């Protein structure tokens, strides 16, 4: 009985100790750790397990834990400070495909078969070897392909389209609750939200999610999906209004006989046209 109580106490103490140690060792994703770190995690786990069921001496166990926690931290620190040590500890990334050709020797040195390489490339959406210009195996084992320039996804830059820069949207309502902090970071207050919700005719409790986009428009998702909400179309409307005014001015320029007025109308019509061209990426997207 006494022994089991001892095991319970030890396990609880070790649980928190190991938790603290792992947190101390860094905040990396489990799938991204190097094989070496993986080994230290396993050793820590095994030593802790053996200690908690009294299979090894508590003091010896602590010494072992200390070494296996301190060394990875020390190595991490050294590898941050020194490039040479970084390569020595974590290894170097291996180029597997260069200029569209597979480097068989490098593939051999990382002990991968052609099938492995193809499977990894497929997981990165590169099904066709001919599309891959360059591929590298990172030190943590993931393979990153770089596609040939004519096989890469098209960006607005490729198409020569100007797009408006956008800041990240801020979530201001979640689960029917107003989130004060993001709202304040936008420079808005609860009254603003109340007014906006009023305009759309919904109450705060019915809103599952509310986001303010970079231009300050509010997007809502309600608990009740049967309710159709008007989505913000203010920018499209603004564009349409300006476009109509531009057409009006052009008409006036044609209709009027007064030469001075004609010049004025056509000048302003041109001005508005330029303005529309400039605003298009910001208003229509």
């Amino acid at each position, binding site marked *: 009985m006494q022994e089991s109580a001892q095991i319970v106490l030890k396990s609880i103490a070790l649980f928190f100790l190991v938790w603290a140690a792992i947190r101390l060792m860094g905040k990396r994703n489990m799938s991204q750790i190097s094989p070496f770190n993986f080994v230290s995690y396993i050793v820590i786990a095994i030593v802790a397990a053996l200690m908690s069921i009294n299979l090894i001496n508590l003091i010896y166990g602590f010494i072992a834990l200390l070494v296996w926690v301190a060394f990875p931290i020390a190595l991490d620190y050294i590898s941050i400070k020194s490039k040479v040590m970084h390569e020595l500890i974590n290894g170097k990334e291996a180029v597997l495909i260069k200029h569209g050709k597979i480097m068989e020797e490098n593939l051999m040195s990382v002990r991968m078969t052609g099938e492995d390489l193809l499977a990894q490339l497929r997981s990165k959406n590169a099904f066709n070897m001919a599309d891959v210009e360059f591929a590298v195996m990172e030190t943590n084992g993931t393979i990153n392909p770089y596609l040939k320039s004519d096989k890469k996804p098209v960006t607005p830059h490729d198409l020569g389209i100007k797009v*408006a820069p956008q800041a990240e949207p801020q979530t201001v309502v979640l689960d029917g609750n107003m989130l004060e902090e993001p709202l304040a970071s936008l420079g808005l207050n609860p009254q603003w939200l109340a007014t906006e919700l009023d305009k759309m005719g919904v109450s705060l409790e019915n809103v599952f999610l509310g986001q303010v986009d970079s231009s300050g428009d509010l997007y809502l998702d309600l608990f009740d999906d049967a309710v159709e909400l008007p989505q913000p179309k203010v920018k499209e409307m603004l564009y349409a209004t300006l476009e109509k005014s531009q057409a009006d001015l052009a008409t006036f320029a044609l209709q009027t006989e007064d030469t001075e007025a004609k010049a004025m109308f056509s000048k302003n019509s041109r*001005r508005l046209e330029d303005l529309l061209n400039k605003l298009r990426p910001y208003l229509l997207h």
Partner: protein
Amino acid sequence: MTVASQVKQTLASLKGARGTLRVYSTQTRDDETRSEFIDALEETNLIIEDLEKRLQTLELKEPQYKGN
């Protein structure tokens, strides 16, 4: 519809557009977009001024349509 009232209508919708532009030029968070909206606001102001001037001359010339 007379010319004066047509111009007035366009002027009104331009003023509405100016209001919306002003809202966006304050509530947009991205600096580049905001300055674009501010530029547009100034441009719209100039056009509105020109139209208002024209409207005054029209009303002077055709006083019978004043107030339509």
